[in-house]
């Protein structure tokens, strides 16, 4: 029951509307990740859940209680900031104990909880140090430890790994995943712009754009069945290739004519009334394979080859006036710039979106 429920949550700064009515149910123990481009409102939404930002409209429930006007410290939340936000003049121990001292917990209880948190995060040898004597990864662990000590029902993470270098980011990400396993009943809400973090950590991902929810779902559902063009392009790297197309034969299964004239069969139903309408055809770079023979999706000249060893990225100039199609082929390929190549894809991996960007797939 210690979930978070958002009902038509809105935020505006004066005339500027930032969030346009967010509806979301987060169950107890769930790990939910908010992703979206900069300025989509994901951090604002998290700060509203924390209570650091006021709620302009709508209702928010934490653990079944309306919390719109409840101060942050009484919402049962703890927050981990991007910049760690440690108190620089306190030792690691005092940083973690601060909240409990404010709440006038007993000395023994404070000591027990700080030591337990330090044990989980391997911070015991550093308890007497000041934050400035710690590395970035250790500082972030102290910040997480401070949050654990609050014994929160809901854990909030605001881009906690953004200030760490690449290797440390992976290590800390795994630590957060482990932490979640140790606290199965604690709800965690995590904001990031890094889709790898989102895909690996989340039970459910919430994709936000321009103050609206685009799609909510488990990571692989978002990957396999994006509801709209925005999600299709946002999840997955490199982004999904989108090619303008026209529907030539609607029905149980659809045939479209891609820009450039190539006809493609897509196993997605469309209404007969859609015949002749414009659409967007999508295929992920990793779903493209090098075609043998005449059965191909499109052909083009290779403009850039990026050989990464495990995969080779091919930029294909096929359509005049259109950005290059990207193909991600496993392994090392003997391809030169300027080669003509043909690509095909499993028809089940093809996507079709209407003029408004909504998927035709049911």
């Amino acid at each position: 029951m210690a979930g978070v429920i958002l009902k038509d949550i809105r935020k505006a700064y004066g005339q500027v509307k930032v969030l346009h009515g967010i509806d979301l149910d987060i169950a107890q123990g769930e790990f939910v990740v908010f992703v979206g481009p900069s300025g989509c409102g994901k951090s604002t939404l998290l700060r509203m859940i924390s209570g650091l930002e006021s709620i302009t409209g709508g209702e928010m429930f934490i653990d079944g209680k309306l919390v719109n006007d409840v101060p942050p410290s009484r919402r049962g939340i703890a927050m981990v900031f991007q910049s760690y936000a440690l108190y620089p003049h306190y030792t690691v121990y005092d940083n973690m104990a601060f909240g409990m001292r404010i709440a006038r917990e007993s000395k023994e209880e404070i000591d027990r909880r700080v030591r337990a948190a330090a044990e989980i995060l391997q911070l015991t040898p550093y308890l007497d140090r000041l934050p400035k004597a710690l590395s970035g990864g250790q500082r972030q662990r102290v910040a997480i430890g401070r949050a654990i000590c609050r014994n929160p029902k809901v854990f909030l993470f605001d881009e906690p790994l953004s200030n760490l270098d690449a290797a440390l980011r992976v290590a800390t990400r795994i630590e957060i995943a482990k932490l979640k396993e140790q606290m199965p009943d604690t709800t965690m809400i995590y904001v990031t712009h890094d889709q790898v973090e989102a895909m690996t950590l989340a039970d459910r991902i919430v994709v936000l754009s321009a103050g609206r929810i685009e799609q909510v779902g488990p990571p692989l559902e978002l990957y396999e069945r994006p509801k709209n063009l925005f999600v299709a392009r946002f999840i997955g790297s490199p982004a999904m290739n989108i090619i303008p197309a026209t529907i030539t034969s609607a029905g149980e299964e659809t045939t479209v004519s891609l820009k450039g004239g190539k006809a493609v069969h897509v196993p997605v139903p469309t209404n007969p009334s859609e015949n002749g309408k414009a659409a967007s055809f999508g295929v992920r770079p990793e779903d493209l394979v090098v075609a043998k023979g005449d059965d191909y999706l499109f052909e083009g000249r290779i403009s850039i080859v990026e050989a990464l060893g495990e995969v080779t990225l091919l930029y294909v100039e096929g359509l005049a006036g259109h950005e290059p199609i990207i193909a991600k082929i496993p392994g090392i390929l003997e391809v030169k710039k300027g080669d003509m190549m043909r690509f095909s894809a499993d028809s089940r991996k093809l996507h079709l979106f209407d003029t408004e960007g909504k998927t035709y797939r049911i």
Partner: protein
Amino acid sequence: MISQIVSAVGVVIAGVFVCALYYWLSDKALQLAFPVPEDNVRAASVNLNRRAVVRPWLFLGPALILLVVYLVYPVIATFILSFYDRSGGNFVGLANYRWAIQDGQFRQSIFNNILWLAVVPAACTFFGLVIAVLTDRIWWGNIAKSLIFMPMAISFVGASVIWKFIYEYRGGNGAQIGLLNAIVEAFGGQPQVWISLPFWNNFFLMIILIWIQTGFAMVILSAALRGIPEETIEAAVIDGANGWQIFWKIMVPQIWGTIAVVWTTITILVLKVFDIVLTMTNGQWNTMVLANLMFDWMFRGGGDSGRSAVIALVIMAAVTPIMIWNIRQANKEMGGH
């Protein structure tokens, strides 16, 4: 008027030119003294090293000489004078020091200086900090800050004259023109001769310095407060701290270094306080302070360079350790953590 401006500008330009010329010529001389032969790498590197050693002293030279002439020499001369009599002609040993220890007015000055030290730096820093915090949150904060900072631009003598009118007392049946007495009368009280009220008059003088220096403390502390990361305050809010706890446990400790610098800077100023006392009371009615006493002995009643020198040395001895600590602290602040 025009000719004065022209000559002033001319002097400034000539000064800069002479300085530049000095650096250029001294560097040329250095190059002649330690030549760098192209065919002898060893000699060249030795001479380049020598140049690097000599050059700073050469460039600093004029400034060092001026410092010695205007600072070090007077200190030594004062020290020597303190062992001589009023004319500076006859050696009297420690007589001047003995006099100081026994002199009632000297003790009074020490006591008053300690009083100033206890009140003024604390009051300036406290008010400066409170105003800095409060003005940070209101839209007219910057206007308020400008007004509070403005007395900094007034000379101590000018400020004293302004406050003389505030404390003004008119005898007889004439109307009271002093602001303070006007207020007292408005509430039905008896007008007072404020600056001659024993003991309390010290505080009336201190208020003037507090009025002037609070702006300084406020500006420095306000900048320091802005340097506190917003997230640490938000983290404290989530941890449940109230405004008072955030101020004392999160904000003040983070700017502790700056508070110390402000405090000691004002402390040094207070140890040297002179103009206000001279203008307001000239040390009468038990308001004497060391700097004013020194001035009195040196330039009034025929002058006594010996006793005056003793007082000057006492002031210097009090200021120096605070000054050293202050400079170290300021360097630490600027060097980052």
